[in-house]
């Protein structure tokens, strides 16, 4: 990968990222898809970096799935989002941090709409007032949670227990990254590095010692695409997108896929299992899959958190081969033990995808 020219382009797209006092909003789907990610984010921010992060339990969905699935009109979406801003204003915060890329894209879209059409903002303020009696200030700073991890990547390095290096070969761990379409494809100036050379995840990989692997379908959609997935009969579109990416990245033998969005890790992880069951095809070595990580999970890994505390047991593609390469210890016996020691039950073994025994 020729990165000299790309560094120049990345430099042009540097966004403002607030450095403390965050109003953090969780994603509706991530909490069940990869439930360790958001708690890991909070643990890193509060315990490692000493930041002030506030969460409000009355926060709801941003409506992203319904909006992109053509179920909700934009006015409803804007009013729901206005209510989230009202919660932030009531709590005395100005820096809004969504955990979800779709939310981030939607917040950017709503703020941009209000910027260009103030009369729409006024209308939405009226809607919100009538419906809830609430008023709001717009966020001073809107950043995605991965932007925050990116901003503090060097601080994380200074506390890191592991580097992204293959301990058997001494080579950097090879990672392909997927930033998610809604991160900067719609509003390039809102993402670190813009739309064509987004650097937010690549920067983490480089900083923590890994190698970013370029591949032809790097910027292709993961296959979530809302409408492609929501109706079962349409899922052929979704899985075809993911397969296109797997086929394209496989020759470069990546050790891991790093992702940004709730949908991206989910589909890049789960579809590897589905493809293996439908076609008998796997994309890692020896019938294994390519482990898929969220940026919080990767940060937690380099910080030396217990892999089961950050939720790696929830992945469909086993992550142990990667942990072994880096040398991160884990107790296989405790993989399916819940927080309170209760046995969560072992999932059924896949037919084609190798279940890693360690």
């Amino acid at each position, binding site marked *: 990968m020729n990165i000299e020219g790309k560094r120049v382009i990345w430099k042009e797209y540097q966004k403002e990222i607030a450095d403390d006092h965050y109003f953090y909003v969780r994603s509706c789907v991530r909490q069940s898809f990869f439930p360790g990610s958001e708690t890991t984010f909070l643990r890193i921010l509060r315990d490692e970096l000493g930041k002030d992060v506030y969460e409000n339990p009355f926060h709801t969905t941003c409506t992203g799935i319904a909006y992109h699935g053509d179920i909700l009109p934009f006015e409803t979406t804007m009013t729901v989002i206005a209510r989230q801003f009202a919660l932030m204003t009531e709590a005395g915060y100005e820096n809004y941090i969504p955990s979800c890329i779709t939310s981030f894209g939607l917040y950017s879209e709503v703020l941009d709409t209000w910027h260009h059409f103030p009369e729409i903002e006024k209308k939405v303020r009226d809607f919100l007032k009538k419906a809830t009696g609430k008023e709001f200030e717009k966020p001073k700073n809107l950043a995605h949670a991965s932007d925050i991890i990116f901003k503090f990547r060097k601080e994380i390095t200074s506390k890191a227990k592991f580097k992204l290096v293959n301990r058997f070969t001494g080579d950097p761990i090879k990672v392909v990254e997927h930033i998610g379409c809604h991160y900067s494809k719609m509003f390039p100036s809102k993402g670190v590095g813009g739309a064509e050379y987004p650097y937010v995840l690549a920067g983490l990989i480089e900083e923590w010692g890994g190698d970013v692997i370029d591949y032809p379908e790097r910027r292709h959609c993961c296959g979530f695409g809302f409408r492609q997935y929501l109706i*079962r*009969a349409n899922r*052929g*579109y979704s*899985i*075809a997108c993911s397969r*296109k990416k797997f086929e394209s990245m496989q020759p470069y033998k990546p050790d891991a896929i790093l992702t940004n969005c709730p949908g991206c890790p989910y589909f890049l992880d789960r579809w590897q299992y*589905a493809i293996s069951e*439908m*076609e008998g095809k796997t994309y890692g070595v020896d019938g294994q899959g390519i482990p898929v990580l969220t940026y919080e999970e990767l940060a937690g890994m380099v910080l030396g958190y217990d892999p089961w505390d950050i939720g790696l047991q929830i992945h469909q593609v086993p992550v142990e081969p990667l942990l072994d390469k880096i040398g991160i210890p884990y107790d296989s016996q405790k993989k399916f033990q819940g927080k309170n020691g209760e046995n969560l039950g072992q999932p059924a073994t896949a037919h084609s995808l190798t279940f890693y025994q360690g």
Partner: protein
Amino acid sequence: MIDFGYNINADRQIDYDRNDRRLARYILEHEPTFRICISCGTCTATCSAGNFTYLNLREMIVLIKRGEAKNIKSDIEKCMLCGKCQLACPRGVNTRNIILTINRAIERLDF
């Protein structure tokens, strides 16, 4: 294999790196006017054989160029070499010779 209630859709990308473009190269070598076709479809509109069967010269030329002409053998059999398409073509593409060349290529390249 598990049936999840959906399939994996076939890829619609035209992959010039992987598709078999031997036929296109062979025709270009033997009938250079193959290059100047603009896919207007006048040939198809005037073709009597195409009126009664599925014979579509414009589509055939496009698919050969992409390396996707899978049914070329059975398609080409329907042409009666009348040459009406050649008279109608606004670009002066030697359509009859293209068809004769395809026939030769099918034999030589073992399609």
